[in-house]
Structure formats: C-alpha cells, structure tokens
C-alpha cells in the first residue's frame, strides 16, 4: 500500500469519520454506506489533491467516484492535472 493511500485512510478515519474504532480499507464503501456524507467529500477532495499533487478540475467528480479510497485515487489519476502546469 502506498504511503499516500495510508495517509488518506488515516485522514478519513481521524478527520472525517472521527471515530478511531472504525476500520476501513481501500475498498470500504464510504458514501454509499453512510459512513461519510456528501458534505465531507470536499475535504477528502482537497486532501486527495494534496496527496497526489494534482488539481482536480471542477465538475469532473461525482460522489460515486469517491465511494472508496481506491476509487478516489483512480479518479485523481483519471481527471487530475499536475499542479503548477
């Protein structure tokens, strides 16, 4: 597991779900399971941009693209643009 993925898991558990007893992995459904709601997606998206050093263009991401940690990184790889370019 890459360092970025582990950082994202830690961020979601610590700052979004805010419950250290909840265990998630790269394939845990987050939005569809109700663990996080759509208001939290923006925080995750900003963190994802920082971790992947990309900017994700507005309008290119839907909640279903962010349902798992795996999907988040796949989304960044698909639509993210390198920063400062």
């Amino acid at each position: 597991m890459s360092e970025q993925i582990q950082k994202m898991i830690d961020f979601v558990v610590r700052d979004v779900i805010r419950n250290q007893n909840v265990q998630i992995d790269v394939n845990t459904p987050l939005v569809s399971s109700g663990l996080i709601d759509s208001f939290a997606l923006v925080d995750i998206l900003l963190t994802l941009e920082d971790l992947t050093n990309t900017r994700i263009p507005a309008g290119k991401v839907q909640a279903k693209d962010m349902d798992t940690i795996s999907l988040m990184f796949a989304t960044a790889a698909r639509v993210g643009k390198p920063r400062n370019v």
Partner: protein
Amino acid sequence: MNATASGARLIDPLTYHTIPEALHAAPSEDIFATMWTSEDEVESVRFGEFRHRALAQACFFRDRGINDGQRILLVMPQGIALMAAFVGAMLAGGVPAILAYPNFKVDATKYSLGLRGVSTNLKASVIVVGQEFPDGLMGHLNVERTTQLERFQDHYPVNSFISEIRERRPNDLAFIQHSSGTTGLQKGVALSHAAVLKHLAHLAPSLKLTPEDRIYSWLPLYHDMGLIACFMLPLVFHLPVVMQSPSAWVTQPATMPKLISDYRCSLAWVPNFALQFLARRVRAEDRASFDLSSLRALINCSEPVRDSSMEEFLSAYSGARLRPHALQSSYGMAELVFAVTQSDVSSSGPSRVLIDGAIFRKENRAVLVRPGTPGAFCVVSSGRCIENTKVRILDSDGNALAPGGVGEIVIHSETRLEGYINRPDLTAKVLDGEWYRSGDLGFVLDEELYAVGRKSDIIIVAGENFYPEDIEEIAASHPAIHDGRAVAFGRYNRALGTQEIILVAEVRSESDLANSGVIEREIRSAVSTEMNIGIASIFLKPPLWIVKSTAGKPARSTNREKLILEHVELQPDSGSF
C-alpha cells in the same frame, strides 16, 4: 415598474395571467438559462429556444393524453431539460411536480415504494424520468396502472397540436411544490398561476429587482428557494440564471464564487450553512482570485440566519471585492409560495440584535442588552414582510405577543396555500382562519422578523427539513433495536453552521452492545440510503434507557436532555440558541 440607468424597465408579473404567458412574452434572443456542469460542458439557452423546447415537451405530454389539471411527476437531474419539461407540462394543461433525482446509493425497492407513495397521493398521470435514470432502478419502479412511466425525450417533434394548447386561467393550478418529509410522505403544496405571479410581484420590490439582474443558483429545483427564486423568478422577469447541480457545488464549492465571478451574477440565495462551507472549504488562494463585486445580494434563507456564519464569510471573501452589504437575509416557505420577509437589500445588511440569553430561555422574551453582557447572544433579522404579507407572533395559548415576545410565527399572505394535497389532517394543523401557522419560533422588533428555531422537533440540515420520526423509524426497524425506542434530534454544529443529526437508540439485549460498531454502521447505511442524509453520532444504549411519555412514545426532549447529561460533548455551544 423599475427603470434603470439603461432605460430598461422591469416587467410587472401582474400583466400576465399565467406563467407560460410570461414566457411567451420574453425576448427570443435574450439568454435565459445557463447550466454549468464543468469547464468544457456548459449549456446555454435563449428564451426563444427554451420556449420551443418547452413546446416540444408539451407535445410529448399531449401525445400521452395529458389534459387539464392532470399531475405529472418529473424525476430528472438538475438542468435545462428538466426546466423545459416543467414548463411543457404546464403548457399541455398538466400540473407538474419535481422530485429529487435518485443518487447512486439509493435502494431500488425502497425508492420504488417512496415514488409510488408520492405518485398515488398526487394521482399522477405520468412520471417522467431522466434519460440517464438507471435501468436497474427503472425495472424496480412499480406504479399504479393508471400512471404512465416514461423516459424523457429531448427533441420531441413539435406537432400540429400546438394550436390546441389550451389557454390556462389564472386560478388554474400551475404546479405542485413539496414541503418537507421523506419521499413517500412529502406534503404537496399546489400553487395557481395567479398565486405565483402575485408572489413574484410582491417580492420584486423587496429585492429591488432590475432588468440587469443575473441570478446564480446551485439550489435544487424541487426546493422552493430553487424553484421560485431561481427558476420562476428569472422566467417571469425575463432574467438570465446561471445554474449548477447541488452535488457539483457541494463537492467543489469553489465553483459557486467562480461562476458568480465569471458570469457577473448579481443575486443568489443560499442556506446559512453554505456561507461557512464557502469560507472554510475554498482555498484562500482561490478565494482571492474571484471578483464578487457584481453580487449585490447573497440572501441567507431557509434555516436560522447566524451572525457568526455571515461574519466568517465576509472575512474570508474580503479580498474578493465582495460588497460590504452583499450579505442579506430572508425568511420563507413553500406554503406561502416562497418569501415572507426580506432584509433591505439597499441597507448595510440585516439588523443584528444582542439578546439576554437567560431571559430568552426562561421568559421567552427578546430583551436587548449591551455588548459584553454575560450570556448574551446575537440574533440576525430576516427583514420586513414583503408586500401584502403580515406576520404575528403567538404564545402557546394562541395570544398575539407584543414586540420582543418569542412565540410561533404565523403569517397572513394573499399567496398562502389552500391546503396540502390529499392531506386534510395536516392542512388543519397549519391553517388557522386566514393565518398560516409556520411551526417556527421567532420574535418581531421594529417590524423586523427574527426567526430563532422550530416549535416542533423538525431537524434542519443545510436548509433541508427532516422529521425525526422518519429517522427513528428507520433505526427502530433494525433487528437489534427495540421497537419504537429510538430518538433523533438536531444539534447545532457551530463548525458546520447548521444542525447535525444525533440518534440515541435502545438495543433489545445488553449483549447487542458488544456488536455496536456493526449495528451503528447498518443504521447509518439505512438512513443514508433512504433519506440521503448522514447521522453525525449514534449512541446505543442498554434496555430500558429510553424514557417514554405517558402516551407511550419516546419523549424526545427528555431523552435528549438525558443523553446530554451522559455525554457532555453534546452540550449546546454557548452563545447559540
């Protein structure tokens, strides 16, 4: 009519008999709606083309036998196609209603049941779903045999029936907008063409609307603020509106100031929480890149207006050329078409008063105090009544209160609902002679209304109303939860600028507590799927924890207080109400 420097005059909605008539009079070449999806996906439509698209939809409905007064449900994503279908339904003589488009996490069986509930209540003749409506979900939809289920068809041929389009009359029903509740239990409010046009005529002077105004919106069209302020208002006054979907905005909130900046929008409405969301979730370097100088009124509406949220927004966007008085406020509801009050948009923003907290809580009175008084808190005005609207504050015995008295807000308006569709029981609860009982609590000072909360236990999250009963029912349906022993309530979250949902539920057996994590996750998932809302905190308690009233129902306020005593982190923020 308002004349502007350019000499253009604002339309008087009362010169029209119906909403389609207002559309018919619009200049064909003027831009009406712009739907922004992403940088490379923007759709704009001029009034002339929109009229044509609405006519095509009218043909679609007429070809399906729609005639006077038949109800049409629209389940389509936010966009110009939905707007054209809505007006097309009116043109065909039907009465449209917009429902929320299902999200990807919806449970097909439960969604179908909810849709059937609304459809049956409204006696819908046709349900139109969007072109992208999932096939899997479509296969699950089970509607009455008398209801036609159709997929939206763009570019429907405009056929010879055009000449047969029936002239609507002012008092004919124009459309239905829904008040709060889960899908199956929503309260339908039927509005006539005359009521909508009259309401807009009353609202325009309070907004100091001009022909140069341009509206921005991410508000859903199934919500009165989105439907009336950001669709009907620009349609009737022939103004441009720039839109995006609520989900696109909430995922990337910077798009809102960017669109206002790029399109030079002058008016927008948002619920209170959005101000904090925009202040905290948009990067500082991005905020500084926007030019919000065109925005003459950003109106805070549909949940209690918070001084702290407004200040935070003003501070965060001070570098974006935001006009110092751009933040305004309003109070409204679907039952009155939309607005009841509006702050003076030409003044220095809504009035703010500092209230003695102890007297407010103990004596239900708003007594002004000096800054620095211990326990004092600030309340923001929602402004004065718009034209032809009156507000009174009643105590629990129904007596009118003097200025400063805190009680239920009741409203007299020419554009009040006649009743909820097929719900005489609910109608009887809210209509009191000529007055509408809002269920909201507030007070009046210097003829300005200050709304401070709800009389009932309704929870308002990000401007949307949720009944605790709906959440409790879902929780109690979990096999580990004791029947009827769950209590949901709202708690103001200062960091979010809106309420969050807290749930406390009693397990059937103490041994179930060992499995709390799984039970919590399953309840969260069920509530999220059925209501599209997250629960902030779930507390599972052993048998006999929940306190019931003498009527055998969980006593919500008692259980709330009991939970707060056990969990000090749930104490209300000091200085909030």
